[in-house]
């Protein structure tokens, strides 16, 4: 196991507590964790500002309306929660290129940024086609023993492992 950085918690503990938070959310608010629909709603808000008539005619924005809902606030909350946790523990770090990427591809920013942008575009298209991301399918789906959740999770990892192999070569340990 890699040595834990100062202030980090065991992933088992943090994960189990997250499980409790999600139970609380289902109990109190009747809401399951999810994140990717928020990107649809946000994209809809941007498009609506430019061309409201067009957005009103698009069936996907009729299904996932460009409004702020529970999940939208949840995703904003993730940002705030991570900001609080990192700044209060000294682990906040303003970083443009991740360490692992830099080790393999160097500190050139545009390469990492282009990859991140393209990856984000492809990933979100896929998540919407699958009707969920690692939160909606991976956490919420599999904790409800949904078949779609487990199948999605396997596919997420399969696609990801293949790309990781292409980017970083075989699985040799460092």
């Amino acid at each position, binding site marked *: 196991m890699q040595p834990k950085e100062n*202030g*980090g*918690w065991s*992933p088992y503990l943090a994960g*189990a507590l*997250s499980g*409790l938070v*999600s139970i609380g959310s*289902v*109990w109190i*608010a009747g*809401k*399951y*964790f999810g994140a990717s629909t928020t990107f649809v709603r*946000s*994209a809809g808000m941007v*498009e609506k500002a430019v061309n409201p008539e067009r957005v009103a005619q698009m*069936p*996907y924005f009729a299904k996932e309306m460009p409004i702020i809902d529970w999940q939208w606030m*949840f*995703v904003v*909350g*993730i*940002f*705030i*929660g*991570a900001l609080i946790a*990192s700044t209060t*523990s000294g682990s906040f770090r303003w*970083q443009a*290129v991740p360490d692992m990427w830099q080790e393999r591809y160097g500190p050139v920013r545009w390469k990492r*940024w282009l990859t*991140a*942008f393209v*990856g*984000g*575009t492809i*990933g*979100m298209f896929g*998540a919407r*086609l699958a*009707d969920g*991301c*690692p939160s*909606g399918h991976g956490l*919420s789906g599999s904790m*409800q*023993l*949904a078949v*779609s959740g487990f*199948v*999605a999770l396997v*596919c997420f*990892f399969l696609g*990801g492992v293949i*790309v990781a192999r292409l980017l*970083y070569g075989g*699985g040799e*340990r*460092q």
Partner: protein
Amino acid sequence: MTTLIYGLVTGILFGFLLQKGRVLRYDKQLGALRLIDMTIVKFMLSAVLVGMVGVYLLNDLGLAKLSIKPMIVGGVVIGGLTFGVGWGLLGYCPGTSLGAFGEGRWDSLLGIVGMLCGAALYAEAYPTMKATVLTWGDFGKITLPQVLGLNHWFIITLFIIGGLYLFRWFEKKGL
């Protein structure tokens, strides 16, 4: 309004725990996909195992309802693999990208912009997808207990035992 506040508070708690568990980082996400660091798998599986017990308990007591996404083979498999490819390139998922930005890893911003574009593209493609991929192999909202014809507590018990064995194996192998 109350619903929105619940969302924000729940998100803050989850974001806090994601950061504490060190699962927001590119290095951790790619570490899992390169099969050299299982931190995010430990986190996810712990959350799922705890969540399973709670959610089914609430459901059995009539205090909450399940919300199952349909198993459409075309959508879930093709979409899932596509998401995986994007995830491997970006190194953050939709939820963790916001968290990663929250701890200063601002390459995630490019990913967030990309994801907004991806969502907009999907909105354009949706009518076509609905008529094609999303009609391939629709099994509806099915769960493992239904498919296997077994009691959900039996399946949950198996998952917990399997999960604990997997955790022990991770620690033995130093993953």
